[in-house]
């Protein structure tokens, strides 16, 4: 997941579909995000590279829609419903996730274990 500024990021991603849960007037997804280009990347506990300003999943509430869909803590969100999440501010990320008229969000997330799994399977062949 290391990135070179100006170069496209290429990584192994997993597609996750989360169905929003309606709780009265609130619509929740069941996780928390941290990070963003306007935040301090050195305080991110999940990133490998401490200059990584991507959006990370910092907490997944138990039994919530996100956990059910397969989202894990520490995942980096690369795309939300087609919107890019690699170069956004924290607030922009929040807005893209909490659009009122959408009931389903399709995320592309990446984590270290995905890369390892791919490499493992490639080595086996």
């Amino acid at each position, binding site marked *: 997941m290391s990135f070179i500024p100006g170069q496209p990021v290429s990584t192994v991603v997993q597609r996750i579909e989360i169905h929003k849960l309606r709780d009265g007037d609130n619509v*929740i*997804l069941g*996780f*928390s*995000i*941290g990070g963003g280009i*306007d*935040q*301090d990347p050195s*305080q*991110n506990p999940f990133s490998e590279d401490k200059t990584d300003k991507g959006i990370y999943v*910092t*907490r997944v*509430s138990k039994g919530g829609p996100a956990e059910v869909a397969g989202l894990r803590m520490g995942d980096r969100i690369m795309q939300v419903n087609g919107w890019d999440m690699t170069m956004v501010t*924290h607030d922009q990320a*929040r807005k893209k*996730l*909490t659009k009122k008229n959408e009931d389903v969000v399709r995320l592309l997330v990446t984590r270290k274990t995905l890369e390892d799994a791919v490499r493992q399977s490639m080595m086996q062949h």
Partner: protein
Amino acid sequence: SPAVHHHSGLSSELRHCTGYTPQLSTAVLISNFSLFPHALIPLSFQDDNWGETTTAVTGTSEHSLSQEDIVRISKDLDDSVGLDCKRYLNVALSVILGLVVLLTPLAFLILPHLLWPDRLRACGTACEGLFISVAFKLLILLLAVWALFFRPPRAGLPRIFVFRALLATLVLLFVLSYWLFYGVRILDSQDEDYQGIVQYAVSLVDALLFIHYLAIVLLELRQLQPFFSLCVTRSTDGATQHYNLGQLSIQRAAVVILENYYKDFPVHNPAMLTASKSRAAKHLAGLKVYNVDAAGIAQSQSRAMIAAAARRRDSSHNELYYEEAEHERRVRKRRARLVVAVEEAFTHICRMQEEEQKKASGDVMDPREAAQAIFPSMARALQKYLRTTRQQHLHSMESIQQHLAFCITNNMTPKAFLESYLTTGPTLQYGKDRWLARQWTLISEASVTSGLNDGTIFLLKCIDFSLVVTTKKIPYIQLAEEFIDPKSHKFVLRLQSETSV
């Protein structure tokens, strides 16, 4: 004082046990022989078994003289003879030179009037103005010379003061050349132009003032700007200070260092060193080397000795640690008792106001009597504390009472009174007999009139200890500049927020 230990061994080891090098102790014994033939220290050092039969000789014995006393007495004898001679010679030469310098311009002015008064052209107003100028310049020169050369010297230096000698020579040559010129061109030819003669005298006085200016720069100003940093270490306990001095000769630097020594270094206390000496003696006593045939120990054997000593399981470090902890505790306890006793004693004294003094009822005391009245209540605690910290020989009862009277007179608190006993002060604080100001010797490999240089090392030896002085040049400082625009101080917030969605 060298205490000779009764040792059941051969005599060759005895000298090592006393802690002095063999040469020094023999030198002392020989000098002892020459100055005081009736001293009662046993002189049979030719005998091989003299260690077996001598009893211990310590400094407290009535009829013996310790080595320090001998050195002190011999130094006193030397000092009183040599110093006065040099000083009188100096003063005499300076006075003669001063008179020559002062009287020469006057002689230049007066001689024409005495020798050929009739042929002399009358002196006009400009010429008479020059008389006034000569008078005032001579007065200033007189005061300046007194200020620079005739004030009582602060210290007696071993060698002549090179710059002063050079300046005196310069002045002498200068005046002599003026006299020569005067004698040949004016006296012989009996010049009639008196104004010219007066101007000649004025030029001499001006030149002397310029030489005096040079003297000020060489003697006073050159040493003011710091150039060297001197590190002074005392050989007995390692107390160190640093001083910044200008370009001085070694002897003058030594004087400055000694003047500062008396106020900066804590007083030399030989009682504090006995602990390490006894430890050293114990180390030596553990190993006995018997040299049966040859004289002296081969180097390989001495190395074997050191290795054996290192390998031996020595618990003296343990002893040292516990001893020091115990001593610390004891000192603190005595200190607490002392502070309480002194505070209590001070509460018994009360200063009488002016109005009450007039009524003068009963027991009115002056400070000395007041001190004597409250002293007994704190005397025991103070004595015990001084004994524990090994300072009892530095303070006599008389001095303590004097100090107490002084503190009472000046409204000092008990803490202020105790401060001079709780901490060791500089040497100047104690009695004059501790100063030993006439006992210093300058030991140097370079000539003492040569200037200080980077890496010069010299020693200032007193009777019991010496000060080791090393010189270092103050580094050349290169200063760079960096300008900060006051508007360039800007800050951003670094956030790490977490939002739940």
